[in-house]
C-alpha cells in the first residue's frame, strides 16, 4: 500500500457524513458583528480606558492600589519587588497581560507623568527622555502616602465590593477617594468611539474649589475658577491664557496651549535659549530629534548646538549662532516643535456605568455627593460597631452586678452549652452577650475593671449620639467632608507648578481681564527689562523716583525708566531705527532686587541692536511729536499718531543711511527748543518748529553741521536748565543753557567746550539737574557714579574739570544721568 492510498482510506473514514456530524448554531453576520462589537466597545469604555468620576481610576490602577493595600505594601514598610505586585494583581484581579499591568504601575510612580505619585518606586522608573523603567524583576514599589487617602475608610463598608474573576476574593468597585483624584491626577485614555484627556490639577486649589462649592452650591464656573485656576502639570510649563480652560470647565471640552519655560541668555558673543520646563507629555528625546531635523532641513536657522541635562529637572540649552535672532528662533521652536503644544481637554468619565463629558462644577458636585455617601456609610458602620459593643458591655454590667450568681451558675453547669442557656434565661441576656461573658477573663472581675466598663459604656453612648446626629444632618456630613479635605490639603498640598500666563493676549478672551495696575518699567544699560508693581516703588515729591535696591549691580544700572499702567502702550526705539510696541503687561514683573529679563526675550532685537529710547503712550497723551536724532546729525520730527499701529515684531521708525544710527528720541509738544551737540565741541540750539513734520519712514533733515565730528546727543532744553558735557578723557562741566544763543537748524552752532588734546572729544551731552547722579562708563567697562551736584558749573567756553582719573588707554564711552539713589529714605 503506498502513501497515497493510505491517505485516501483515512479520508474515507470521514465519508460523506463529515458535515452532518457538526451540531450547528447560526447567526447573521450583522447581529454577530453588532453584538461582538458592542461587547468589546462597552467593555473598553466601562472597564478599561475611562476613569470613574468618583476615584479617578481605571480598573487596572484601582486593582494595583487595592492589591498593594491587601498585600500590606505600605508607605512605612520597605519596598517590595514590582514582580510581586504585578503577579498579585494579575493572579487575583486583572487577568490581562503582565506588561500592561507593570506599565500602568510604572506610570503611577513617574514624577513627570503623575502630579501626585500614587506609587512610591525605587530603582529605575524611566525618564522624560522616553527611556522605560527597568524590568519588574529589578524595580521595587510600595504605596505612596497619598494613596492611603484614596483607600482610607475602605474597611468601613464605605464602598461596594465585587467578586474577582474566579470568585476567590473581593475587590472594591471604586475606592473611597478622600480627595478628588479625578481632577488632581487626571488621566488619559482612548476607548472606542471616545477618548478622555483629563489634565492634572493642584491638590490645594481643587480642595479649595470643593469647599467653595460646599459653602455655596450655586457657585458658577467663573467663581470656581477663582480657586481652581487651571490645570497644573507635573512638568510645569506655561499655559497661555485661560479662555481654553474656561471653555473646558464650562462644557467639558476645550483646548489649551502649553508652552515651555524658556529664557534667552547672553553668553558672550552669542545667545543661548535655556528651557527648564517642557509641555506635559513632551518627550525630550523626540524634541531633540525634531530640532535636529528642522535644523537639517533648514526650517530653523541659527542653532549651533543642543544639549539636554536631566540632572535637576529638565534643562535644555540651545546654543545659537552669533548672528541669530534668539526671539525668532524661539518662536520658530514654538511653532514647529513640541516646545509648545495644543492640549485638548476632554473631561470624559464614568458616572455610574455611563460615560459622560462633564464640566468642572458637575464633576465637583458629583464628587461631593459621593463623599457624602462615603461619610454616611462610614458613620453607619461605626454606629453599628458601637451599638454591638454597647450590647456586650451591657451584658458585662449585668454579669458584674450579679457576679457571684454568675460564677455559681457556671461552676454548677455540666457543660458549656448548659452554662450558656442558664445564664441567658436567668438574666435575660442575648446569646452574643452570654458568649462574651463566658469569654471573660477572671482579671476582668476586679473593681477597677468595673469602672472601666462603665467609662467605656458612657464614652460609647456619647459617640453613638454624635454618630446619630451626623446621620440626621446633611450639614454635619458636609462639615466632616470639609474638615477631612482640609486635613488632606494641609498634609499634601504644594505650590502650583504650571504658570498661567494671563498676558498672552492671543489666548485670553478679553484683555479687560488683566487688571489695570500702575507699574514702573525699567531697562538697564545691559538690556535687562522688568516691571515693578506699584507697591514696590514710591513716587517722590521731587519728581524723582526712589530706586534704592535696583542699582545694586555694579556693572549694570537702570538707563531707561518710566511709569505707566499695564494697559498703556510702550514704544521702544532702537539704534537701528526700528520701533517696537508692546503693552505694559507684556513686560514680566519682578521683585525690586531682581535684575529682570534680557529684553531679547520680549522684542525680536537683532545682534548689536540696542534700545535708545523707551516711551509710554498713555490714553490721554499730551505730547504730540517725537523728534529723532541720528549719529550723522540728522533730525526728524514725526507725529506720535504715526506709531499707533506698530506691532511687537517692529517697524521702521526712521530710515537710516549706511553707518548711521539713531541716538536719541524725544517727546515734544511743538513748543520746545532742541539742542544737538557734536563731538568736536559745538552745540546747536534751535526751535523745534524749524523741523517740518514728516512721515514714519522718512530719513529727516540736517540738524547740525558736524564738520569732522559726529553727533553726540540731542535734548529738549528750556530756559534755566543746565547743560552737562563730558569728554572722552574724563573732563566735564555744567553750563546754564541761557549762555547758548538760539541758532538755526543745520548750522554749526556755538562752542560748548574748549576741546583740546587734553580733554579729547565730547562723548556726552545731557540736560541735568541737581537731583540726579551721573554714571560714567569707560571702554574698559568701569562704571563710576558721581552726584551731579558735585560737578562745577562753569561758563560755556572752558575746558571743564577732571571728573574721573583715567589711565593711558582708557576713554569715557558713555554717560547717563539717572535719578539720585535714595540712601536715607527708609522704604520698608
Amino acid at each position, binding site marked *: 500500500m503506498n502513501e497515497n492510498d493510505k491517505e485516501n482510506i483515512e479520508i474515507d473514514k470521514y465519508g460523506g457524513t463529515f458535515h452532518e456530524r457538526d451540531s450547528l448554531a447560526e447567526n447573521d453576520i450583522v447581529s454577530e458583528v453588532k453584538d461582538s*462589537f458592542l461587547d468589546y466597545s462597552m467593555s473598553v469604555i466601562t472597564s478599561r480606558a475611562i476613569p470613574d468620576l468618583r476615584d479617578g481610576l481605571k480598573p487596572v490602577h484601582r486593582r494595583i492600589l487595592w492589591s498593594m493595600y491587601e498585600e500590606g505594601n505600605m508607605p512605612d514598610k520597605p519596598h517590595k519587588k514590582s514582580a510581586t505586585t504585578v503577579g498579585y494583581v494579575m493572579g487575583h484581579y486583572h487577568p490581562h497581560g503582565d506588561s500592561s499591568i507593570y506599565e500602568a504601575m510604572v506610570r503611577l510612580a513617574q514624577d513627570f507623568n503623575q502630579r501626585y505619585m500614587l506609587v512610591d518606586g525605587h530603582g529605575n522608573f524611566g525618564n522624560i527622555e522616553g527611556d522605560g523603567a527597568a524590568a519588574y524583576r529589578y524595580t521595587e514599589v510600595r504605596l505612596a502616602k497619598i494613596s492611603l487617602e484614596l483607600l482610607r475608610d475602605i474597611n468601613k463598608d464605605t464602598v461596594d465590593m465585587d467578586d474577582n474573576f474566579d470568585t476567590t476574593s473581593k475587590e472594591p468597585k471604586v475606592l473611597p477617594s478622600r480627595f478628588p483624584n479625578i481632577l488632581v491626577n487626571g488621566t488619559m485614555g482612548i476607548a472606542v468611539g471616545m477618548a478622555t484627556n483629563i489634565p492634572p490639577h493642584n491638590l490645594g486649589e481643587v480642595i479649595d474649589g470643593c469647599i467653595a462649592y460646599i459653602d455655596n452650591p450655586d457657585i458658577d464656573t467663573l467663581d470656581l475658577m477663582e480657586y481652581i485656576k487651571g490645570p497644573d502639570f507635573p512638568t510645569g510649563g506655561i499655559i497661555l491664557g485661560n479662555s481654553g480652560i474656561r471653555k473646558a470647565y464650562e462644557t467639558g471640552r476645550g483646548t489649551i496651549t502649553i508652552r515651555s519655560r524658556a529664557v534667552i541668555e547672553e553668553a558672550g558673543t552669542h545667545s543661548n535659549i535655556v528651557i527648564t520646563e517642557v509641555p506635559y507629555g513632551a518627550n525630550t528625546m523626540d524634541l531633540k530629534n525634531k530640532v535636529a531635523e528642522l535644523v537639517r532641513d533648514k526650517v530653523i536657522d541659527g542653532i549651533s548646538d543642543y544639549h539636554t541635562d536631566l540632572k535637576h529637572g529638565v534643562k535644555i540649552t540651545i546654543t545659537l549662532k552669533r548672528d541669530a535672532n534668539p526671539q525668532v528662533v524661539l518662536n520658530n521652536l514654538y511653532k514647529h516643535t513640541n516646545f509648545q503644544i495644543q492640549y485638548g481637554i476632554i473631561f470624559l468619565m464614568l458616572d455610574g456605568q455611563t460615560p459622560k463629558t462633564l464640566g468642572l462644577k458637575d464633576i465637583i458636585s458629583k464628587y461631593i455627593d459621593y463623599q457624602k455617601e462615603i461619610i454616611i456609610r462610614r458613620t453607619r458602620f461605626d454606629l453599628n460597631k458601637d451599638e454591638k459593643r454597647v450590647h456586650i458591655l451591657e451584658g458585662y454590667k449585668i454579669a458584674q452586678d450579679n457576679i457571684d450568681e454568675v460564677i455559681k451558675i457556671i461552676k454548677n453547669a455540666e457543660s458549656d452549652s448548659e452554662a450558656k442557656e442558664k445564664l441567658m434565661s436567668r438574666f435575660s441576656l442575648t446569646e452574643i452577650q452570654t458568649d462574651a461573658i463566658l469569654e471573660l477573663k477572671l482579671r476582668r472581675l476586679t473593681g477597677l475593671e468595673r469602672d472601666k466598663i462603665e467609662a467605656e459604656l458612657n464614652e460609647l453612648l456619647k459617640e453613638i449620639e454624635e454618630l446619630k446626629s451626623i446621620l440626621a444632618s446633611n450639614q454635619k456630613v458636609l462639615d466632616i467632608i470639609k474638615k477631612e479635605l482640609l486635613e488632606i490639603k494641609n498634609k499634601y498640598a504644594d505650590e502650583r507648578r504650571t504658570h498661567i500666563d494671563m498676558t498672552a493676549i492671543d489666548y485670553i478672551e478679553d484683555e479687560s481681564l488683566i487688571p489695570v495696575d500702575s507699574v514702573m518699567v525699567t531697562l538697564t544699560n545691559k538690556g535687562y527689562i522688568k516691571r515693578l508693581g506699584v507697591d514696590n516703588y514710591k513716587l517722590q515729591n521731587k519728581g524723582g523716583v526712589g530706586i534704592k535696591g535696583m542699582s545694586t549691580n555694579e556693572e549694570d544700572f537702570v538707563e531707561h525708566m518710566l511709569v505707566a499702567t499695564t494697559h498703556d502702550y510702550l514704544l521702544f526705539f532702537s539704534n537701528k531705527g526700528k520701533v517696537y510696541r508692546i503693552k505694559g503687561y507684556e513686560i514680566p514683573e519682578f521683585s525690586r532686587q531682581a535684575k529682570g529679563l534680557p529684553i531679547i526675550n520680549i522684542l525680536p532685537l537683532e545682534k548689536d541692536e540696542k534700545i535708545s529710547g523707551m516711551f509710554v503712550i498713555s490714553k490721554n497723551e499730551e505730547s504730540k511729536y517725537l523728534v529723532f536724532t541720528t549719529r550723522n546729525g540728522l533730525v526728524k520730527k514725526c507725529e506720535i499718531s504715526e506709531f499707533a499701529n506698530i506691532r511687537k515684531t517692529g517697524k521702521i521708525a526712521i530710515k537710516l543711511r549706511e553707518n548711521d544710527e539713531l541716538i536719541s528720541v524725544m517727546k515734544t509738544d511743538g513748543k520746545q527748543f532742541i539742542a544737538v551737540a557734536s563731538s568736536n565741541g559745538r552745540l546747536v540750539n534751535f526751535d523745534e518748529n524749524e523741523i517740518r513734520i514728516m512721515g514714519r519712514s522718512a530719513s529727516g533733515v540736517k540738524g547740525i553741521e558736524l564738520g569732522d565730528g559726529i553727533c553726540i546727543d540731542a535734548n529738549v532744553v528750556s530756559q534755566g536748565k543746565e547743560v552737562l558735557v563730558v569728554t572722552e578723557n574724563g573732563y566735564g562741566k555744567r553750563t546754564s543753557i541761557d549762555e547758548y544763543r538760539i541758532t538755526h537748524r543745520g548750522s554749526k552752532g556755538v562752542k560748548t567746550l574748549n576741546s583740546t588734546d587734553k580733554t579729547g572729544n565730547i562723548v556726552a551731552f545731557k540736560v541735568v539737574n541737581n537731583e540726579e547722579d551721573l554714571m560714567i562708563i569707560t571702554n574698559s567697562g568701569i562704571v563710576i557714579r558721581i552726584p551731579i551736584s558735585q560737578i562745577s558749573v562753569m561758563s560755556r567756553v572752558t575746558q571743564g574739570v577732571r571728573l574721573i582719573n583715567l589711565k593711558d588707554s582708557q576713554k569715557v564711552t558713555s554717560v547717563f544721568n539717572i535719578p539720585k539713589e535714595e540712601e536715607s529714605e527708609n522704604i520698608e
Partner: protein
Amino acid sequence: MLACRARNAAKKAREITRKSDLATTNFFGKLSDCKSKDPKVSEIFIVEGDSAGGSAKKGRDAMTQAILPLKGKILNVEKARLDKALSNEEIRTIITAFGTGIGEEFDLSKLRYDKIIIMTDADVDGSHIRVLLLTLFYRFFKPIVENGHVYAAQPPLYRIMHGKTRKYVLDDREKDEYLASLPENVRARAEIARMKGLGEMDADELNETTMDIEKRTLRRINVSDCVAADAIFEKLMGDEVEPRRKFIEENARYVKNLDV
C-alpha cells in the same frame, strides 16, 4: 496617485496569489496545515494568540484540521488602505492559506477548506478579534462568507469544578442546567470560573469542548442582507468616529457581556 496605488496593490495581490500555487511552507507563515488536501473535509481554525495555538495544534485532528495562530489583533482592513493591508504579514498568510486569491482573481472553487472557523477567547478582546476577522473576510473574501463557509467556534464560557470533576459549559443556560443536576451539597461547593482564554484549557479539553467534530457546536455566520452588512462594517469599523460613537450610545443598554 490613488489609481497608481490601487494598481500597485492589485499587482501585489496577484503576486501573492501566484505564490500560493507554489504552496511551500514559507508562504504559509505559521499555518499548520492539515494532512488532507480535500477541501470538502478540510477546515481551518484561525486561533487567537500563540498560547492557544499550541494547545489547538496538539488537540486537533491533524488529518482534517489546519491551525493558523494569529498574534494579537489583526489590522482593520476597513480603515487601512489596500496596499497597507496587503503588506501585512498576517493578512498575507490568510490570503495564501485560503487559496482563492482576492479581488478580480477571486475563485471560490480554489478554496482549500470547507470551513473557516474563527476560534477566539471567550472574552471581549476575543469578540474584537472576531469582528476584525469578519471585516477582513467580508471585504476581501465576500463569496466565502456569503456561501456559509465562515464559522465561529464556541469555546465554553464557564468551568465548574467540584471534587475532582471539571465541567465546561457553553453558556449561562447550560451552566444553570448543569448546576441544577448536581446534588445540593455538591452545588454549594462547586467553584464556577468564568473562562478568560482558550489557553486556560489543556489540549484535550480544548479538543473536547471546542474542536471535536462530534462534540462541538459551531456558529455559522450567514449573510441575509448585503446592504445591512455593508452598512454595519462601514459604521463600526470605518474611518469616521461619530457614527460609531452614536451607535455605542444608542445601543449601550443592549450590551450582553461586559468584561470585568
